[in-house]
């Protein structure tokens, strides 16, 4: 693909990732912008990238960014997560979630590049609830398994799923016996009704989006 490069002595490919998922979590909804030297058919780009990427990294859709549509970062203000907690009774997790939601503020700590920081993990949480999803997550061997559905607003500093898990520990002493499995399900613009709008929707009106709106 005719990828564009930055100017200068050591040119870098023009790629920018919008709110990339943290290390160690799964994601079904990552978004990135790629600068190209000339226009290519998005369907062709999708196939070419997918062929080069590792198994498990699948390119689902590519669209041409419409002029004046704003950057991806402007179109993402919330993220939808699923937290699987193998070895945790759903009832125990539910109590912790209730305590978390009831608290006006939940202070948690995390190591950042600037050192250890303390911040509120509660305010950014739009929704946190036990899911009624009946299926057990794949690969989780320990039964029972609590599953939490989480929608978090994009704030600074970012509140990540592990911060919410830290919050559950702070308010209710919830200590999963094995590391929880976290998956990002969606991200985009949060509507007043609590829906998350796909950030590529703005570009779907464009002619080039025909084939690909089926995620």
């Amino acid at each position, binding site marked *: 693909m005719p990828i564009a490069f930055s100017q200068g002595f050591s040119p870098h490919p023009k790629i920018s990732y919008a709110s990339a998922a943290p*290390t160690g979590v799964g994601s079904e909804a990552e978004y990135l912008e790629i600068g190209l030297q000339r226009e290519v058919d998005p369907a062709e780009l999708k196939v070419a990238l997918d062929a*080069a990427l*590792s*198994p498990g*990294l699948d390119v689902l859709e590519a669209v041409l960014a419409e002029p004046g549509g704003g950057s991806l970062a402007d179109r993402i203000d919330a993220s939808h997560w699923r937290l699987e907690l193998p070895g945790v009774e759903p009832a125990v997790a539910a109590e912790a979630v209730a305590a978390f939601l009831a608290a006006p503020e939940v202070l948690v700590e995390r190591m950042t590049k600037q050192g250890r920081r303390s911040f509120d993990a509660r305010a950014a949480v739009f929704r946190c609830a036990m899911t009624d999803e009946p299926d057990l997550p794949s690969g989780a*061997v320990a039964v029972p398994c609590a599953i939490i559905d989480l929608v978090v607003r994009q704030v600074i500093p970012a509140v990540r799923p592990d911060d919410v898990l830290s919050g559950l520990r702070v308010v209710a002493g919830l200590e999963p016996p094995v*590391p929880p499995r976290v998956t990002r399900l969606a991200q985009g613009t949060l509507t007043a009704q609590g829906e998350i709008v796909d950030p590529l929707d703005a570009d779907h009106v464009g002619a080039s989006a025909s084939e690909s709106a089926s995620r």
Partner: protein
Amino acid sequence: MSVSSVFPQLEQLLPRVSKPIQYVGGELGAVVKDWDDTTVRWALMYPDAYEVGLPNQGVQILYEVLNEQEDVLAERTYSVWPDLEALMKENGVPQFTVDAHRPVKAFDVFGLSFATELGYTNMLSALDLAGIPMESADRDVTHPIVLAGGHASFNPEPIADFIDAAVLGDGEEAVLEITGIIRDWKAEGCPGGRDEILLRLARTESIYVPRFYDVDYLPDGRIQRVVPNRPDVPFRVAKRTTMDLDAWPYPKKPLVPLAETVHERYAVEIFRGCTRGCRFCQAGMITRPVRERSITTVGQMVKEGLEFSGYSEVGLLSLSSADHSEIGDMCSGLAEQYADTNVSLSLPSTRVDAFNIDLAQELSRNGRRTGLTFAPEGGSERIRKVINKMVTKEDLIRTVVTAYTNGWRQVKLYFMCGLPSETDEDVLEIAEMAHEVIRAGRAAAGTKDIRCTVSIGGFVPKPHTPFQWAPMERPEVIDARLKMLKNAINSDRSLGRAIGYRYHDGEPSLIEGLLSRGDRRVGKVIRRVWEKGGRFDGWSEHFSYSRWVEASTEVLPEFGVDLDWFTTREREELEVLPWDHLDSGLDKDWLWQDWQDSMSEYEQDDCRWTPCFDCGVCPSMDTEIQIGPTGKKLLPLTPVTNLRVPA
């Protein structure tokens, strides 16, 4: 019996370790096959961290050669960092491959590539994590054959107790032959168990199986003899040589890592072997004769390798790349083909002459200037005669000044400390040379804005070289000389400010010396060091000199020898060396004569351009020098069309 992935268990540990991405695999170029569809299965290990091991050419080549065989499966495994090692032990997760995360213990062969002896403790960690008995004698038919390769396997005696077999030399054909032997043996129902398969390997006369050889010692600790303990194995085991590199254009599908690694480029070996005859250089001695890959094959590999991988850097590698008979056309041809792209081309430039600069100039045509490195190796003309690095001080200064006048602002100079017969004065001359380089460079370039970096490492005498008999210098003497050199460089403040100084302490070199020229008794030291926590000995933050000294002091007195005996002691002509039964093709009498010539500062020419001087390799290995020029050029700029063979 199918084998399942350990990834579900491993995945739970990954959030708790540093750089977890190095353990997930999934690289472009990685191959995952169905276990049950294959009959011979190899786990290939580079016994260092992923970031160092992944770019290794040897492993990538064998990985591809093996996986091209339909019924063969090859996967890769690397050393896990101590944080993950502790968690794996605690949670019962075994050493795994990164390709399909299968347990190493389930494979038929566990092949390790030792570029350096400092990886030995990491092998023990891997065996321990894999659940494979640490000593060959304790393994049974269910365990993989633990096979060592790489340059260090030219003296595998220090790890003789831990490995089942070793291959000396080029691996491309060896792995296929070994695969064939294992395939047949398995098809017959594994008759005779472990001893039988090892015997079949040993009978090839080019696979060394330590258990079939006994070592006797003299009362003073020297080796009396190394002899087969059964009649059906050879007295000496010969190295492998792959001839006609054009027939083996690997890697064709270079691995592209997701994690950061030390080299991120497509490396093409433009020739193998070197006959410059630098007396310290084990690689140059054990890889003879010179075998060139032709300009057209190199061009084809670069084209296809870049298309496959998307790398934007190409390294034209070998032991002395400027010596390729077609190097001029190769560099200008490639530079032209990639002039309008983001691809940068580089040539490891250790030869100290102006031709090297011409080539670098050619490669930097698209404005991407790579660094220039020269390796005079010795500070004084006298010591350069000792090591057979034929370059005069005037040549060196003229060459570096040419680089400055051609626009380079920075050059690197490589040296060694602790060379045989070296004095303080030999090392101090490096400072004079560096001062002169800057003085002359400033004058010629008309600017003060030039720099040079002096890099100096400790000399380690290696088996199968003329210096295999040489005494090592003590670490405190090395360190004192390095300090003296630093002071001398900075004695002139104006010049000293333009000179960077990088050095390696003497202590790790001494231990490398112990492992390089050690015998089977040193295996006990390695094991003791590992038990005391020794890991990643090639990393200064993990290496502990005192741990090696303590372990040597605990283990070696029982045998009447000590650390000094293995390192700082000069050997005599008739002493049986631990690797005498391993045949690199070099005639021992020739090596001894070259050692004597070295001490009388007598130089040896390169047989690439002068008549044969009887080092012994070609006749004893039935090989010959293979060089061009082929007369062909890298001209056609149109893409090569795919030829379709009618079905």
